[in-house]
């Protein structure tokens, strides 16, 4: 039961983020929603690698007999995805600042010069 809690949290975080990106009309809120989704996926990845009673996968802490490590690969994946997440968030926010200078608003409904 308790082992499934991180997964439930991850899925809920993703749903929160998707909700914000779908229904909030403020551009910064959309960026916040995407960041929340990223956090959800990261939590999902780390929970995948967790093994009950495992220890952190560090070379100098090589386990003795009977002990085991948690999986290192998902952690490496999560690190990469955190980096990528920061890069995309920074790009999004920089674009928001430029858009605000051009349009004078952050309302997604009014930022539709390109349509049709």
């Amino acid at each position, binding site marked *: 039961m*308790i082992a499934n*809690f*991180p997964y439930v*949290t991850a899925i*809920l*975080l993703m749903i*929160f*983020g998707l*909700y*914000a990106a779908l229904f*909030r*009309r*403020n551009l*910064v*809120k959309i*960026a*916040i*929603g995407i*960041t*929340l989704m990223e*956090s959800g996926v*990261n*939590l999902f990845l*780390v*929970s995948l*690698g*967790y093994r009950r009673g*495992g*220890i*952190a*996968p*560090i070379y100098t802490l090589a386990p003795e007999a009977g002990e085991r490590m*948690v999986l290192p690969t998902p*952690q490496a994946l*999560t*690190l990469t995805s*955190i*980096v990528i*997440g*920061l890069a995309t*968030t*920074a790009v999004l*926010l920089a674009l*928001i*600042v430029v858009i*605000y200078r051009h349009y004078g*608003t*952050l*309302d997604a409904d009014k930022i539709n010069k390109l349509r049709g």
Partner: protein
Amino acid sequence: MDAVVQVVLLVVILAAGFLAIRFKDLLSSVVALAAVSLALSLEFYVLQAPDVAIAEAGIGAGLTTAVFVLTLRKTRRKEEER
């Protein structure tokens, strides 16, 4: 003990995430987002991922928040009323 810490952290994550999309004041939203990241990094530590925890604390709670705050300074702080 571990389980209790985990449940508390996960509830904090969910509550802060919920608040982050509920607040009309964008600065409060960003602070809630930082709280999500901080709790998430502790959760990573509990899940035996110290590497990821350091990165999430530095990036998620530190730099992402700074970038968001700078953006809000350049634009506006409140979400438009609809």
